[in-house]
């Protein structure tokens, strides 16, 4: 375990860069809507990473900005319904094939945001549990259980100071035991059947984390 005490927490950009660094060369990857999308900007040239978007495409390129080389095409969007581009070697397929690809374990990595993650890798990221909220799951549950490895990106603490790495999720679950790694501003964790383990800290110490979190922490 590496304690980086000579610095502050990771910025969002640094977090995305660190996730990008841990994606293997040539991996097939789905980046969830929101913060995970920014990981794409940090993949090195020649990474060979191929992006999957669950609305039916492999080989997704950067966002389209309407220039001569990246025209906006309403028939070409990502899962967030934002216009994107296609890279050489791309392919299109329908929704049943796209989710078969995901559910069948063919994607190497999926990066998701989260409200909470448990020490054993349970994920809560689709519903805050408020009684009057309109439930909307989209592809969250499919993404959570499909990829060979699931990475979560989040802040370790909510705005009210409560920890988001928890002994058991109090928000409604998206998937059980599905998360492998949790990348946060102040630390990276491995989670799973053996519980949580700290891999690296940023601007905080292992002992600080032990004190602030309600879960046993390997190191």
């Amino acid at each position: 375990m590496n304690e980086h005490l000579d610095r502050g927490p990771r910025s969002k950009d640094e977090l995305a860069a660190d996730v990008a660094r841990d994606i293997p060369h040539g991996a097939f990857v789905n980046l969830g809507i929101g913060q995970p999308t920014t990981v794409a900007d940090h993949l090195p040239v020649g990474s060979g990473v191929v992006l999957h978007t669950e609305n039916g495409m492999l080989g997704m390129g950067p966002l389209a900005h309407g220039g001569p080389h990246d025209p906006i095409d309403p028939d070409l969007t990502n899962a967030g319904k934002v216009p994107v581009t296609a890279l050489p070697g791309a392919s299109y397929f329908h929704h049943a094939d796209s989710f078969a690809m995901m559910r069948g374990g063919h994607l190497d990595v999926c990066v998701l945001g989260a409200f909470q993650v448990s020490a054993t890798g349970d994920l809560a990221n689709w519903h805050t549990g408020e009684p009057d909220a309109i439930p909307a799951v989209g592809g969250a549950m499919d993404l959570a259980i499909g990829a060979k490895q699931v990475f979560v990106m989040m802040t370790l603490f909510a705005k009210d100071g409560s920890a988001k790495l928890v002994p058991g999720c109090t928000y409604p679950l998206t998937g059980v035991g599905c998360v492998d790694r949790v990348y946060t501003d102040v630390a990276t964790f491995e989670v799973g059947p053996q519980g949580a383990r700290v891999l690296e800290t940023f601007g905080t110490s292992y002992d600080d984390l032990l004190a602030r979190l309600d879960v046993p922490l390997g190191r």
Partner: protein
Amino acid sequence: MRVCADTDEAVAGVEDGATVLVGGFGMAGMPVPLIDALIRHGATDLTVVSNNAGNGDTGLAALLAAGRVRTMICSFPRQSDSWVFDRLYREGRIELEVVPQGNLAERMRAAGAGIGAFFCPTGVGTPLAEGKEVREIDGRTYLLEYPIKGDLALIGAHRADRAGNLVYRRTARNFGPVMATAATTVVAQVSEVVETGEIDPEVVVTPGIYVDRVVRVTT
């Protein structure tokens, strides 16, 4: 297979209480002119199956606003511009079944493929597993999911030939090919109708056997 003169002819005959599958993911592949024709047609008490529950005030949102939909089956009703659905839902004037996006696709595929039910890993241990049959197979836990069949499917494709063979454009393909297999009557709006034989048999995505009516729309 019939090439229809207009969208009103294309949706003729749909009955009150019908289940209507509506293609599209956001606006990509969304058959707005066919939905407009369905509104003019007047059928009511509908169950609509679509990924989202309408955007803004047009298309599916207009169908909802007209009070024609009893039940919405979708993966993601809650969007920044889903105010029509939100209001109806909060007023208790519409029922909602939330289905994970991949299950939505796979359940329609099952309907089209003559599969009676299937064991699916998505949603295990989540609130959406409530009431579903659970089974462990080969060390993994699955939920039993049943087909979703439509009386009518409205889909947006790119090009049709006079035999009803369809090709799509980019990620506008999404739910179209699956819905085309899952409904008794399948209506496709296209940008272009070509003579039979002008679509390469190797690149047909939806074979004509699945398509009952085609109508050309200008978009």
